[in-house]
């Protein structure tokens, strides 16, 4: 057995996290920053942080992930990291020439107490930041929150640094062709960001999607070295976010902070909702775009919705009451839980390492009348070790989560759907969305493949079915 030491009996743990269902803030900040055009994420800390984050993101996307580091050594840890950051900016702008450097902190620089805005101001004073270039920052100590909160903080920084007050004339002109909305997509894949833009365009909306990693972490083969692939949201576009009619923020944990900050700064009303994964959440998303944009839902989207419903009804028997265990990030978990409920499936165990107070309420809301029968937990010891113990006590028909779930899936012989971050051993997540009606259809297909393959594998010969 791969996880041979995991006992069935659950004992209380207070201090030891085993097989975490989360990682640390800076990697989220790095991923978010990759969604700005011509932006180099910069890790203000030891070299190892940057190396680990780049490696993990690279394994997840099978794409180059460019980021630099302040390369702290003992001296910097004693005297502070100011000179390392100043030197970094000088090197970065002379060698890599980005438009934006997005600095995020680490547990090291936060424990030291480096004041990043002060250092950026000094760099500006010393002429280390070329005209037209920007250095932004996010405070992302690893001992607070998780990778999702790090992502959220960097997205909020995009608002803090780039949003300009509404320019009425510009706004009216911009809005004239088609209504303008901001969409904050949350921590989703480039494929999802493309799908969100496609849905908005299909509805006749001009959507400013930020961050936007499409074109960057799914860049095509080019035959040449490209520090900054042609994707992401530009500084100019970010500057106009204040002109939009409204902001639709997808995923409260990853996107609400930026949407509220923008409302406060530029008076753009916002609507925060669960990620559009599955039927109901996509319905609410599409409806929000309709209401906020003052547009109609086009026939093409109605058709996609109808196809999804069609498959749901065609294949309902294979999904009904299937017991599912899930682990991952709050926004994905809540939306998925609701989708599973829509399919009359049975989400029984749910854990996220990301500490969020509202998680349990949101899950309870998604589970409706089944809330009392399910086990769900958030925070440090809500880890995959605990989830595995629950499964050992009463097994499930399906496990959904990131690649690390494959160890549990193999030991317990449970079908496994890879979803979330990181996925290190498959490629589909980069190119095929899970959001929207199309994304829901893909999730449905994946789950059905797992269930039906399992039935084909296990059925006695006499009841081996040709047609299913």
């Amino acid at each position: 057995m791969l996880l041979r030491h995991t006992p069935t009996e659950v004992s209380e743990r207070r201090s030891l996290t085993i097989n975490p269902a989360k990682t640390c803030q800076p990697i989220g900040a790095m991923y978010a920053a990759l969604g700005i055009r011509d932006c180099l994420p910069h890790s203000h800390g030891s070299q190892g942080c940057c190396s680990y984050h780049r490696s993990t993101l690279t394994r997840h996307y099978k794409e180059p992930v460019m980021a630099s580091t302040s390369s702290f050594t003992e001296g910097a840890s004693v005297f502070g990291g100011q000179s390392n950051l100043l030197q970094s900016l000088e090197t970065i702008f002379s060698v890599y020439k980005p438009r934006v450097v997005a600095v995020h902190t680490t547990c090291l620089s936060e424990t030291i107490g480096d004041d990043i805005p002060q250092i950026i101001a000094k760099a500006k004073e010393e002429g280390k930041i070329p005209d037209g270039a920007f250095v932004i920052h996010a405070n992302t100590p690893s001992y607070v929150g998780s990778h999702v909160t790090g992502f959220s903080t960097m997205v909020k920084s995009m608002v803090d640094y780039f949003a300009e007050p509404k320019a009425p004339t510009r706004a009216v002109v911009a809005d004239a062709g088609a209504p303008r909305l901001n969409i904050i997509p949350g921590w989703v894949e480039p494929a999802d960001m493309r799908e969100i833009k496609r849905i908005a365009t299909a509805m006749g909306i001009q959507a400013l999607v930020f961050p936007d990693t499409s074109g960057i972490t799914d860049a095509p083969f080019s035959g040449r070295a490209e520090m900054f692939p042609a994707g992401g949201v530009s500084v100019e576009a970010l500057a106009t976010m204040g002109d939009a009619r409204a902001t639709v923020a997808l995923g409260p944990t990853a996107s609400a902070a930026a949407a509220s900050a923008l409302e406060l700064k530029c008076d753009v009303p916002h609507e925060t909702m669960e990620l559009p994964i599955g039927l109901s959440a996509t319905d609410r998303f599409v409806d929000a775009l309709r209401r906020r944009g003052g547009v109609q839902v086009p026939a093409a989207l109605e058709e996609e919705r109808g196809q999804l419903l069609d498959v749901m009804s065609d294949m309902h028997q294979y999904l009904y009451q299937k017991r599912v265990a899930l682990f991952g990030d709050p926004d994905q978990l809540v939306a998925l839980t609701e989708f599973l409920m829509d399919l009359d499936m049975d989400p029984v165990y749910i854990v996220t390492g990301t500490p969020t107070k509202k998680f349990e309420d949101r899950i309870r809301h998604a589970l409706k009348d089944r809330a009392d029968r399910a086990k769900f937990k958030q925070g440090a010891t809500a880890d995959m070790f605990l989830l595995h113990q629950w499964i050992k006590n009463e097994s499930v028909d399906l496990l959904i989560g990131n690649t690390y779930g494959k160890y549990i899936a193999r030991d317990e012989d449970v079908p496994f759907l890879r979803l979330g971050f990181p996925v290190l051993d498959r490629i589909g997540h980069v190119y095929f969305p899970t959001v929207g009606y199309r994304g829901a259809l893909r999730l449905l297909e994946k789950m059905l493949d797992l269930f039906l393959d399992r039935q084909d594998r296990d059925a006695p010969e006499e009841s081996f079915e040709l047609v299913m």
Partner: protein
Amino acid sequence: MTTKRTESEAQGDIKDALLRAYPPKVARKRAQQMQYHEPTDDLPAKPIKANTRTVPGIITQRGCTYAGCKGVVLGPTRDIVNITHGPIGCGFYSWLTRRNQTRPPTPEDANFMNYCFSTDMQEENIIFGGEKKLKEAIQEAYDLFKPKAIGVFSTCPVGLIGDDVHAVSREMEAKLGITIFGFSCEGYRGVSQSAGHHIANNQLFKHVVGLDDTPQTHPFAINLLGEYNIGGDAFVIEDLLQRCGIHLVATFSGNSSFDFFANSHTADLNAVMCHRSINYMADMMEKKFGIPWIKINFIGAEATAKSLRKIAQFFDSDLLEQQVEKVIAEEMPAVLEAQKRARRRLEGKTAMLFVGGSRAHHYQTLFKEMGMKIAAAGYEFAHRDDYEGRRVLDSIQVDADSRNIEELEVHPDPQRFKPRMADETKARLEREGLKFSEYEGMMPDMDPGALVIDDISHHEMERLIDRYRPDIFCAGIKEKYGIQKMGIPCKQLHSYDYGGPYAGFAGAIEFYEEIDRLVNCRFLKKLRAPWHEVGLASSGLAAEHQVGRVETEKGGSDSSDVDYAA
């Protein structure tokens, strides 16, 4: 344009191309870390700067001290519960990502390698200290798993807030009665992973080596040092040694167990694979227990044969020598056959290797066996001795970063120190060519004029590839996809791209085939669509941009393997 430039002009030109974009001070520093290899027997040779700080802001291959300690050296041992003391990230990223394989003898034996253990420090632990949480975490780990040993690994903030992981470890060791040891391997301690190797060596030596004095009865008992069983390399080597009749007491640390380390001081020879990561252990074991060490290399068929012969030579036994020759004779025909096949397809092609602290050297032997040329190479975290040989050890300046790492003072053990051979035997073996405590480094094995670059940056790598267009580039995961976007195949030499094993004779054959697959893969000839050739493209793989490896053919497509007209 037609003037033939001298070699040195061309070399200067390339160096300039690599350095041009840097601010002057950075360029000066980087220039000291790159040079064209000029073989020389004299000291001082032109020294290469290595093991120095990476300039902040440079996109480097390097990682941190924690990665070298917990990830590299301690990671591959299956029955120690390794607890990362810190916020969650460090433990998460070092969880199963290095492909260290392990094979517990039975399904019941301990194997914690698939687990990640962390104290997951929160803000209040940073403010009020994390020692209490660490103690509780150790207790919880003990209650759940009853392991033989627990290791505690410090991450950056731990050092700053002053948690004493060693005191906590001592206290819990006394309480629980198992080995518990701490590592001050905070990420900022050194300039790269290398500092972490040293720290790991020190603590393993202090706390584990020598715990079990069960006497050694096998006449040919060795330890293998610096082999981490990536992709199963150690399994191949274990099998070879066994067939030769050589007993492996412990491997540091591929496919290893705590118990092997505890008894490792009873071996008669330390055979060192990765000099960089483990030479400290070899030196300390020699001083304390009298175990001599020799440098060996099981990457490459010739190197493997040579290494086995060296071990046989050390034991000075006809029986062992015959057995070793028998095994080599069994293995070589298939190797030579595969080499012949590989040479037909790869001879004369060029490779570049930028990785690690030994692999950029060891893997050159495999490429040479295929008749390929090494145009450039360098290490990610090595020291000068790994380039120029241990003969330069005395001339290496110890800087503040190296002084940070404890240098253990080791003396001969009053009871257990035992010279492994008479002085005259040693002298005779030396006369016969066996070199003790010696590593000659990467450079003597390189062709004159080959470019050597230490701690290559992303920028330099891109420029280098642009200039040389090598047929293959070896690096790590962070570099891989950027290189491949340039149309050059990249072989990862950390993870082996999830392939391997490449050690020993069978591994060499596997590697030849892998390089053939990469260098001669078909899609690299199909990077352009038909319309790119007729000037219709406006973007993307536009015709004006030359993709180095594309072969343009007249009169239609090169894509079809089938002749439809036939």
